[in-house]
């Protein structure tokens, strides 16, 4: 581990980044995402911690998380598990309560979001002192791997409808790879009432309402290395319901 403490270990500017990883049955992916996070944070020298919020995964995700704690240390790998699958919004609230950083990064633990973009998020945030930085799949050289034509059409179609109805000033609203100032995340999460995709949308809309500044970084989204990502009729219907609710109430 001594070799990991290279010259760039501590930038000493006082900023610390807490990565929130809500997990459910991510036994295979968790070690890999943690390894990648350690690699890119190590190389960039930013101070960080990884908070794993496991919702009682039956596949033993928590056991794997404990092993990772042994390997990387309890300061870097923080475990805050919950007894049951309780949803993303509450996972963020729970995670933020224990975060010791002044910035919070939210991302998926299934390797669809790549930690290599985190230094870019951080630099973007510093450049414009943004209250939040959002990873976008739709602009710049952002993109997706593993989506068929149907999925792409639905995605772009839904995004188009969202842009027309809500005019949010951000290109990717359903994305969940973001960097927030800690107090901004805290304030936004307590105001948001929706679930799933719509929750991520609502966070951006409320951020706009509260006049927070939003920066964007193009990211690549690699869909489901180990499994299948489904976007069925039910999800589309609940997305539309949520969108119309936001349309009518914000």
């Amino acid at each position: 581990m001594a070799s990991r403490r290279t010259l760039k270990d501590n930038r000493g500017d006082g900023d610390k980044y807490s990565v929130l990883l809500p997990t459910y049955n991510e036994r295979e992916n968790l070690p890999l995402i943690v390894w990648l996070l350690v690699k890119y944070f190590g190389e960039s020298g930013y101070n960080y911690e990884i908070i794993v919020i496991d919702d009682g995964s039956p596949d033993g995700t928590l056991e794997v998380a404990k092993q990772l704690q042994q390997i990387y240390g309890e300061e870097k790998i923080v475990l805050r598990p919950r007894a049951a699958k309780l949803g993303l919004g509450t996972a963020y609230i729970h995670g933020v309560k224990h975060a010791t950083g002044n910035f919070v990064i939210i991302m998926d633990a299934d390797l669809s979001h790549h930690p290599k973009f985190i230094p870019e998020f951080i630099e973007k945030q510093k450049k414009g002192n943004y209250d939040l930085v959002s990873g976008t799949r739709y602009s710049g050289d952002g993109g997706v791997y593993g989506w068929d034509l149907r999925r792409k059409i639905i995605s772009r179609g839904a995004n188009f409808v969202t842009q027309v109805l809500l005019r949010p000033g951000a290109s990717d609203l359903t994305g969940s790879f973001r960097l927030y100032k800690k107090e901004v995340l805290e304030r936004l999460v307590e105001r948001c009432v929706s679930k799933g995709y719509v929750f991520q949308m609502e966070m951006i809309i409320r951020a706009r309402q509260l006049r927070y500044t939003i920066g964007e970084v193009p990211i690549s989204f690699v869909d489901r290395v180990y499994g299948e990502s489904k976007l069925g009729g039910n999800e589309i219907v609940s997305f539309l319901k949520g969108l119309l609710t936001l349309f009518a109430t914000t």
Partner: protein
Amino acid sequence: MTKLLEWVFCVLLLGVAWALVTFDLLDLRLPPIYKELAWPMPVYLLVLFGCYSIATIGYRVATFNDCEEAAKELQTQIAEAKADLRKKGLKL
């Protein structure tokens, strides 16, 4: 004002303007060409918007970046990560 109210307001405003011209509600006695142009406007604008939507979505789907490189890089890194973690004592 919510987005819904903004839309309702704009639609009402445009609707009133359209009705005023098309049905000559204020007895403005505009040249008939105004009425002829105004009358089909709602349908015309809807069709225009429909075409714009399809064209925009089509374009965006066609230019949606396919991250082949990212996927390959991830596969390589997964292998590297597994080997390194095994060395560090991780048991799966």
